[in-house]
């Protein structure tokens, strides 16, 4: 199978030490995931479940206090394999933008407030391409034009743009060098609904035209439904379910996924939406066994003792739940 990035048994913890107090936050605890070439993979879950951290690791941006405690992480570009965890920071940075790019959360502040957009484009392009200022300017203007953005933005400062426009510019900035893999962290949060739709549209357009792969983190199931080919559900630092988008929405198997889907408003259903009882656990001291069991309505005795393994249900559908793996599969969905 042709994958672009693959994590195996990955553990990434935040370890801090300050004034004699040491804390370990297990943001990613034993996750394996493959990103296939050309797909749009969505990562969903409540805030604080490790989504953003997973994205950081996929990006290879592992800075203290974040530390990789176990597992492997690989990229494949063409025929070449790269072991991310053993690559030097400089080598990783060389891969950025030309191969792997990143659209950050909160585009309000990712553009340097005292630098014209055009100069920022120049900075980012010239880092990876041997071009002069005129050439980078031309390249940026052309690209902005292809995305339907006015070249005027090159001459303004970030504060002169609206929030939605800023996010579009950021998307353009992230994808101007046609990277193979684009990682987007909550690209639509903090934007109003209409603008969100435009941004989602733009992301899809970029992905389709450039034939790139998009990994998207969002807590908004609506965005996932509109955009994703596959959806991965994270809970408390663990991957609990992954499947094609239709399967996740039509026949979710993990009780947590079921809750997430049920909490969505539907056009044909006017009944009250159920929200998930309780709160997600702290990642500093997660519950034993299945991390969802304290909130799970179907919890078995085994759920509090053993960690459920990720079980393949066929068609690329995987779930980590004893209801599926121990009790037989007579009741799918």
């Amino acid at each position: 199978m042709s994958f672009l990035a693959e994590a195996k048994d990955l553990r990434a913890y935040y370890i801090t030490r300050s004034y004699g107090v040491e804390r370990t936050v297990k943001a990613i605890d034993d996750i394996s995931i493959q990103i296939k070439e050309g797909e749009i993979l969505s990562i969903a879950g409540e805030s604080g479940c490790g989504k953003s951290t997973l994205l950081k690791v996929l990006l290879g941006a592992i800075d203290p206090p974040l530390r990789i405690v176990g597992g492997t992480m690989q990229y494949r570009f063409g025929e070449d394999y790269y072991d991310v965890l053993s690559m030097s920071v400089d080598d990783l940075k060389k891969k950025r933008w030309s191969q792997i790019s990143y659209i950050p959360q909160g585009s309000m502040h990712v553009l340097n407030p005292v630098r014209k957009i055009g100069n920022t484009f120049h900075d980012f392009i010239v880092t990876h391409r041997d071009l002069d200022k005129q050439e980078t300017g031309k390249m940026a203007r052309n690209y902005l034009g292809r995305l339907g953005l006015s070249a005027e933005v090159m001459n303004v400062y970030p504060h002169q743009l609206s929030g939605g426009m800023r996010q579009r510019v950021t998307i353009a900035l992230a994808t101007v060098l046609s990277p193979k893999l684009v990682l987007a962290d909550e690209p639509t949060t903090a934007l109003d609904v209409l603008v969100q739709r435009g941004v989602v549209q733009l992301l899809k357009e970029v992905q389709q035209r450039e034939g790139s792969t998009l990994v998207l983190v969002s807590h908004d199931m609506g965005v996932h439904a509109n955009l994703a080919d596959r959806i991965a559900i994270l809970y408390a630092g663990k991957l609990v379910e992954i499947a094609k988008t239709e399967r996740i929405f039509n026949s979710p198997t993990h009780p947590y996924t079921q809750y997430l889907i049920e909490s969505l408003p539907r056009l044909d259903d006017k009944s009250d939406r159920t929200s998930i009882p309780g709160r997600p656990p702290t990642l500093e001291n997660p519950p034993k066994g299945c991390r969802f069991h304290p909130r799970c309505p179907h919890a078995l005795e085994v759920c509090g003792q053993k960690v459920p393994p990720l079980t393949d249900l066929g068609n690329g559908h995987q779930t980590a739940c004893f209801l599926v793996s121990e009790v037989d599969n007579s009741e799918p969905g």
Partner: protein
Amino acid sequence: MNLLKSYLLPRIAQWVITVFIGITVTFIIPRLIPGDPVERTLSSLGSLQTLDPRAVESLKEALADLYGLDGTQFDQYINFWKRLFKGDLGPSLSAFPTPVIEIIAKGLPWTVGLLTTSTLISWSLGIALGTLAGYSPKRLWWQIVDKAFISIYPIPHYILALILVMVFSYYFPIFPLVGGASGKPTLSWTYISSIFEHSLLPATSLIVLSTAFRFIMAKALTTTVAGSDYVGYAETAGLSKWRIVLFYVIQNTMLPQVTDLGLSLGAVFSGALIIEIVFSYPGIGYSLYMGVFQADFNLILGITIFSIVGIATAALIVDLSYPLLDPRVRYK
């Protein structure tokens, strides 16, 4: 237009308020002490015995005129302002009848020269070092620099200057002890090099202390900016370190530094006065010292008024140039 209304005009109004308050305070202070200010000033004037009676009489008149003791307090206040508008700070008492403004004019180039040179150097040095130290705080070298500046910063101006005098003028007499230059002021190399030689120690004292202050501030600001989203994003994209430091960090940390420069000019100036006193450097600070030494109240008052207006104006210029640096103020 918008910039003028929302930024420039309020600054200019602030300047007017500052000058008004400053001058009013200097008007009120001498009047808070009971007694006849003319007699008090004369009696404390050490050189009185050596003056001939006619000079004393004209001095008395000048003082009475200066204090404008005729009329109500309000009339006096108005007169006080009228004189100032004419640039009249009255005569010096110790060097009667030289006008105070002339003495100030003589010292001004020295003080301004000392101040601008040391501010320019300490500004660039402090920001450059502080930014680098704040951007790579783990490096041992920067930690040493950091500790050094933290230990220098709190030392009072006088103490540091005194130490420099002890070390470099007494024990290793490399530099001249006092004065601004030797020889006649000409455009010759010897004269200019003698200015340089005489200024080196005073300037060094000022530079060391101001650099320490800028360093500490730059480092703190850099720590904040280095944690910002836009620097993080530029780092993620692999931008080179010098590009990030120059265009992403310094361009942003400069802004609060400039605002602070405007506000701290008064303190920098006070520091320069002390340094001038220690090194007998012929600027305004030294005139002030002579004024204290010879109980020349008028000279002290004049210098105080002049420095209030001067510093307020310099601060205004700094403030007005701020929009050049910050596009968020420029294009609102």
